[in-house]
């Protein structure tokens, strides 16, 4: 029993990170109908920004909770700016062309960021400084939870509540919902859609960067290609929950995280080796697309042809 709880804790930890990244995918899709493939790389950029902030501001030498908060908020802010810049210079110029053009631009952007970072930092894995003491606490029996895991749960829940507040209780959130409902009508109603789109990118990028810093704190190894797999899994999570649907992205992230951990933990009893961990996420994607294409919480919208 305690092993099961332990595996669940492990799974929900990664699931929370997937959820944070999936939120960015889903918001951008909700507004632009664009799969922003560079989003996983923003997660990596967030981790590297955190790394640079923590080492250059001296938090690496004197770790403190204050240092962690500054690093987290700082890298979220910088990633938000980078997200807006990507939108402004890569996506906005091609937005008027077909969706395929934007999609391919997104893939190009993703490769550009990855290899720009390989060029600057080299591909060697770096050790992220430990900013908080990572004690382990016993839940019961053998099941333990580490301080960095608690941190991931607490921070991601807070961020999700904040996001929910922004979307449903602020003017900007109302504008976002309007743009997502119909971009052209929103424009006619006097909404500055360009700004709303830029804001959405900023919000999504900040969440991904938070995911990056939290993961780096949990697994102190960062490399320029770390965002590829996490980005793909988060994309699957967003589709699983129903792309464009915000609670769905969170649910999808948690389900993917738990599913792949349980496959590693218990798969060997039913003949699935732990190597199939990544395959599970994508098998789930295929099943969802076959059985319920709109996702768990998504509503089925008829596409006009």
């Amino acid at each position, binding site marked *: 029993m305690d092993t099961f709880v*332990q595996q669940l804790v492990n799974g929900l930890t990664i699931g929370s990170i997937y959820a944070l990244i999936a939120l960015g995918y889903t918001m951008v899709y909700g507004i632009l109908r664009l799969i922003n493939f560079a989003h996983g790389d923003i997660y990596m950029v967030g981790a590297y920004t955190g790394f640079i902030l923590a080492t250059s501001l001296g938090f690496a030498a004197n770790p403190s909770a204050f240092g962690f908060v500054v690093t987290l908020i700082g890298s979220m802010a910088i990633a938000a700016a980078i997200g807006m810049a990507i939108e402004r210079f890569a996506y906005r110029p091609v937005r008027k062309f077909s969706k395929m053009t934007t999609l391919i631009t997104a893939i190009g952007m993703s490769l550009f960021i990855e290899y720009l970072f390989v060029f600057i930092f*080299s591909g*060697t*894995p770096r050790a992220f400084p430990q900013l908080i003491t990572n004690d382990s606490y016993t839940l019961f029996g053998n099941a333990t939870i580490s301080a960095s895991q608690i941190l991931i749960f607490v921070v991601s829940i807070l961020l999700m509540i904040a996001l929910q507040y922004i979307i449903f209780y602020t003017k900007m959130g109302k504008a976002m919902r309007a743009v997502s409902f119909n971009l052209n009508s929103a424009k006619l109603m006097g909404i500055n859609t360009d700004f709303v789109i830029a804001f959405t990118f900023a919000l999504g990028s900040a969440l991904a960067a938070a995911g990056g810093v939290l*993961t780096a704190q949990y697994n102190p*190894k960062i490399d320029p290609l770390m965002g590829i797999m996490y980005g793909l899994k988060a994309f699957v999570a967003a589709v699983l929950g129903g792309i464009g649907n915000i609670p769905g992205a969170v649910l999808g992230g948690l389900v993917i995280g738990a599913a792949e951990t*349980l496959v590693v*933990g218990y798969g060997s009893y039913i003949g699935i080796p732990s190597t199939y961990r990544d395959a599970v996420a994508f098998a789930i994607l295929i099943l969802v697309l076959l059985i319920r294409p709109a996702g768990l919480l998504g509503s089925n919208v008829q596409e006009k042809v």
Partner: protein
Amino acid sequence: MTRIFLAICVVTSILFSFSCVQKGGDVNTAVATGDTIKVGAYGDTTGATSSFGQSTKNGIQLAFDEINAAGGVNGKKLEMIFEDDQGTPEKAKTVISKLINQDKVVAVLGEVASSNSLAAAPVAQEARIPMITPSSTNPKVTEVGDYISRVCFIDPFQGSVMAKFAANTLKAKTAAILGDNSSDYSKGLTQFFEQEFTKLGGTVITKQTYAQKDQDFKAQLTQMRDQKPDVIYVPGYYGEVGIIARQARELGMTQPLLGGDGWDSPELWKLGGAALKPAYISNHYSADNPAPEIQNFVKAYQTKFNVAPDSLAALAYDSAKVLADAIKRAGGTDSAKLKEAINATKNFAGVTGTITLDASRNAVKSAVVLELDPAASKFNFKETIYPEGMTPPTAATTPANSNMTANTTANSNTTNAATNTNSTANTNTANANANTNR
């Protein structure tokens, strides 16, 4: 307009194919031009295992500089042309083709990771250009063909070294294995460790795998924790190992972690920190060895590159010296003669031990077991383990023999003493003795 464009296309493509034919023509007869002999080297300097490539590059550079300072080989200077393969097999294949076809190198040194060497070796074999891998330990690498050789031991031995250490020295009865499923190196070690450990009366109670670049290993480790193994064998590369160690300790697992030469990197200490204790690895040489030629190498390397040499640097240095020696014996760079000379390498005194290539072009050497000391960020010498049936080097004296047969733990002080006696007793073979005595 279109016609002009087409015409240009046709003309350029003809020119290209012509130049390709020309290039293809003298691939096999790559001759050193002028006063330099071009030697190709490739490795990962920007990918996930980039400390391996960097060390290899440095090791070769140091060896070439020393050789050139002493007048070169047959009056010609050695020149290294290094290519980065980003640690991927596909790229390794591309860069070795570039080195052979474009740069016309006479021989190639590389790679570290077995998967990358396995991808590149067929290219060298087909072009009949000798390739010496300094540190790929998977047995399949040299099975590619007679132009492929190596200066390190192979995984059946390396895996058995750790199994022996676990069963005999740590008195472990049960072991768990957490291997990297995307690397031939790790798969080989997993297999050979299990074989030997079972033979010695132990049981491997669980085998789990991960993929390179994974971030989270807690699921696999939690599964292992329940089975309470005495030791955990992690035959992977340093990037993942550091994190695995951390997560194991976070889950309250205090078992010794065992590994191989893939752990050997200065980055390991930053990634794993205090979690890397207790931990032991099998490796090619120990930088602590007081033997003079090892200390001279360590000092020269440190002065030149400002970092302590790991075993990959030492092996690269040895591979470069073996190549230079073979060019000298072959009396030139004719690829068939050079290959014969490399494959006939016998009792070559290197930093990592005496190098003799066997019939399958593998070096038969002893291995050392090192204990990790994260507080000082260094590996401490623990014991030397010799391959079964390894004939001790020609002038091996009694201490070496007793070490070999008993597989006993030798601390560095007694080794030191033995080395000293050897070197005074027989100056000619002192190098060989010093190395194998470790």
